[in-house]
């Protein structure tokens, strides 16, 4: 049956047959030398020349009126490459926020107020119930106003988008210096250096993946740059220069696990991406499930490159859990959903990552994401009036956009928060800004009231439980109006008193081991 002899031109031959010509080393003359010198000189001195040109640019810019020099927000995200689907959303969020600030708008909120405090929009019932004490029990004298039909505890006011009384920040225009990281860590490092050392940005807002954040955090710390990381992540960053405004594990894992255990039963099975975020979130899930009455009966860690899940599906079917915790990250791993649906997997699913960022429920056809539960801090479908107004503003500026995800909203309110803090501080000097941000800020973001905790530099968030049904419509079945990022508090992190520059991992928490033992 052989159809080709070994001497064929196919794989059997040596593909490295040398080409006919070779560089003639002999007799390169003056012209060649000059040319090479030109090339070499140009190539190797390019940093110098290019830099001189760039610096010339800088010079002309700084010659303009010093007082009216713009406030520079440095922004690095992946606009091309693998993570571009998230990066582009965040870029648009930043652009929208900068435009609104320059037009003199801001979000309501202020310092020294805290979650549930004075300035925050709290529980407003049209007519509160009246109670009095009779004998042993309490009597309800008057039932009060209409009961809520949506199970939303906080009745939110739509108008949180107000005038700031300022044009830009302190009269100076805000300009967004944005560069593309190309999902390439080494490039991120170069770009961070450029923004910090060369462009001298007043604040840096950057990072999607934890790897990107960790790549630039040493540079941020070296130059004491004020840095906002606006993404959901595995938690633990305690860095005096860094403010993390995304949600962390304790704010999302425990609520969703609690709900799943109540609704579907105690036995859970975890599918997690095999890298830091997946592993740590799975560790949190395993540790805290017993405290809410659940139990993780099995875990599987899947490498980021896997895109074919028949074996994974078979193992899930073999384990027969009550619900499945899917912590799948990246384009390859999201293929699990349509494949599982096609294989007829009917287990209810829980997640803290999917839907809200990569809008899988819009990209995959029903019923791939049916019965998916996520404890989200924001996704496009949040029903409140303020969010509907926000989405409208966004879609007016970016009508082509398909989704507004969690991280985009975080970027949006973070930049507004920066502007508000600068106005209170009276300056954009970075050291003073860091102190100003530690006043205990509350801001009325589209998700709800968000509180930036002084000691931990993390945010308390408004958490909602989103459920995706068979038609991929989303409904919100439970609210937690404010969940603090309490883990770093428990570790004793207080960046106001004791500045630190590290990331904590669960094994540095003595209590974690306690829970793991019980699990």
């Amino acid at each position, binding site marked *: 049956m052989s159809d080709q002899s070994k001497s064929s031109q196919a794989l059997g031959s040596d593909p490295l047959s040398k080409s006919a010509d070779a560089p003639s080393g*002999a007799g*390169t003359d003056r012209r*060649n030398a000059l040319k090479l*010198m030109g090339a070499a000189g140009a190539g190797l*001195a390019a940093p110098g020349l290019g830099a001189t040109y760039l610096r010339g640019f800088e010079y002309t810019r700084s010659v303009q009126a010093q007082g009216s020099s713009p406030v520079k927000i440095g922004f690095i995200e992946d606009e091309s490459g693998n993570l571009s689907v998230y990066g582009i959303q965040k870029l648009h969020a930043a652009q929208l926020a900068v435009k609104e600030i320059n037009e003199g708008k801001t979000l309501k909120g202020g310092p020294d107020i805290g979650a549930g405090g004075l300035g925050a929009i709290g529980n407003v019932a049209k007519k509160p119930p009246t109670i009095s004490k009779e004998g042993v029990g309490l009597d309800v004298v008057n039932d009060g106003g209409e009961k809520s039909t949506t199970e939303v505890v906080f009745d939110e006011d739509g108008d949180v988008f107000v005038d700031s009384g300022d044009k830009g920040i302190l009269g100076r225009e805000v300009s967004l210096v944005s560069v593309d990281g190309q999902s390439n*860590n080494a490039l991120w490092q170069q770009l961070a250096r*450029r923004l910090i050392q060369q462009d001298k940005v007043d604040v840096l807002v950057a990072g999607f993946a934890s790897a990107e954040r960790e*790549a630039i955090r040493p540079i941020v710390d070296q130059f004491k740059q004020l840095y906002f990381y606006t993404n959901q992540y595995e938690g633990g960053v305690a860095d005096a220069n860094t403010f993390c405004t995304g949600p962390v594990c304790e704010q999302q894992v425990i609520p969703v696990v609690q709900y799943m255990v109540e609704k579907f039963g105690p036995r859970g099975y975890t599918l997690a991406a095999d890298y*830091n975020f997946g592993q740590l979130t799975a560790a949190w899930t395993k540790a805290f499930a017993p405290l809410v009455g659940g139990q993780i009966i099995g875990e599987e860690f899947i490498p980021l490159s896997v895109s074919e899940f028949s074996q994974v599906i078979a193992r899930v079917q073999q384990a027969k859990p009550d619900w499945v915790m899917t912590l799948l990250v990246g384009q390859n791993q999201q293929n699990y959903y349509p494949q599982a649906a096609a294989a007829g997997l009917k287990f209810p699913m829980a997640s803290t990552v999917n839907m809200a960022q990569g809008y899988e429920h819009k990209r995959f056809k029903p019923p791939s994401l049916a019965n998916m539960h996520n404890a989200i801090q924001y996704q496009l479908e949040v029903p409140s009036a303020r969010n509907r107004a926000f989405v409208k503003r966004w879609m007016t500026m970016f009508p082509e956009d398909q989704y507004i995800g969690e991280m985009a909203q975080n970027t949006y309110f973070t930049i507004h928060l920066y502007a508000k803090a600068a106005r209170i501080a009276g300056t954009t000097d970075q050291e003073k800004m860091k102190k100003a941000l530690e006043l205990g800020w509350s801001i009325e973001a589209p998700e709800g009231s968000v509180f930036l905790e002084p000691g931990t530099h993390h945010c308390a968030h408004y958490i909602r439980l989103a459920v995706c049904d068979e038609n991929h419509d989303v409904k919100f079945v439970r609210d937690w109006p404010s969940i603090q990022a309490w883990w770093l508090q428990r570790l004793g992190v207080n960046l106001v008193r004791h500045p630190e520059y590290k990331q904590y991992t669960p094994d540095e928490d003595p209590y974690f081991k306690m829970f793991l033992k019980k699990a």
Partner: protein
Amino acid sequence: MAALQHLVNLIAGPEDIGRSRWFWAAFAAVCALLFVNPLWLTEFEATNGAYYLLNVPIALGLGLLWGYCGILSFGQVAYFGIAGYIYGIVAGNMVGDATGPIIGSLCGLAVCGLVATIFGYFVFYGRVQNWIVPILTLVLTLLLETFLGQTAGYQWRVGSVQLGGYNGMTGIPAFQLGSYVVMGYGFYYYVLIVVIATYLGLRLLVNSRHGKVMLAIREDAIRTELLGYDIRARQLVVFVLAAVLAGISGLFYVQWGNYITPSQVGLVQASLPVVWVAVGGRESLLAVLLSTCALNWLNYTLSSEGYQYALIIIGALLVAVMLFFPSGIVVTLARDLPRHLRTLRGQRKGEVQ
């Protein structure tokens, strides 16, 4: 004195572009320019320039392996990563000890050499065909990346240093000479000196007797073997040398950025040295050096100016180079332009007459 003269003759040998006095004058001038550069460069520009330079050793190693010995390795970045991680582990555990970075560097290079020796033995002493080597080395790189990617858990801790999985190993100490921490301008000079020394050293190698045998293996391995040389051993030696060079680049990288992640040994990163060498021209060390710096500079400039087209431009450049300058831009220019110019000049002379 005769030995020195011999050495100089070797360096100026024919197996690379440029050997006339004019060339060496130009070379010296450029080097002098580079040494003097920091006078008007800011620290950022200097360290950025150093970033372009630090990729040169890995490219030179591949140029040596591919252009002069005929073996394409797709997995040079594996050694880049190994050196970086080992340095991070050793130096990270010896923080406070001034000899930490030096020992870390030596360990990194030693492990590179060891892994390359074992893997090379596996490959070359098995007499696999030349074109299989890229696939094997690629698979090794993928294996390493997969392994490193799942080291996220806190049990992956060597001493006090966490491997960190895809979050990367952070806080890697900078290089230190005694009590002087090599950063900023110092780092620029450190890289520059090593790169120039490496280039000259490699030039010495390819012009020497060993270099000639390497070339013979590239031309016709069986004939060389029949002439009595043990080609497996020689290929192995060159492979290990290329791995150590890649390791040097890896060391520079972590000493520059204090950080490394498994994506540095991924598929995309693995193809970059191949691209640099192919564009410059693999048969000349100088071409490789120039194209590496140029392409890195191009990539950075395109990206930092916010162009989404950066990757497309680079892809188009690759296609154009392979179509019109199959031996590489620099090599083709070095070879053909003088001839064209000479022809033009000859024509004009003819016309005048």
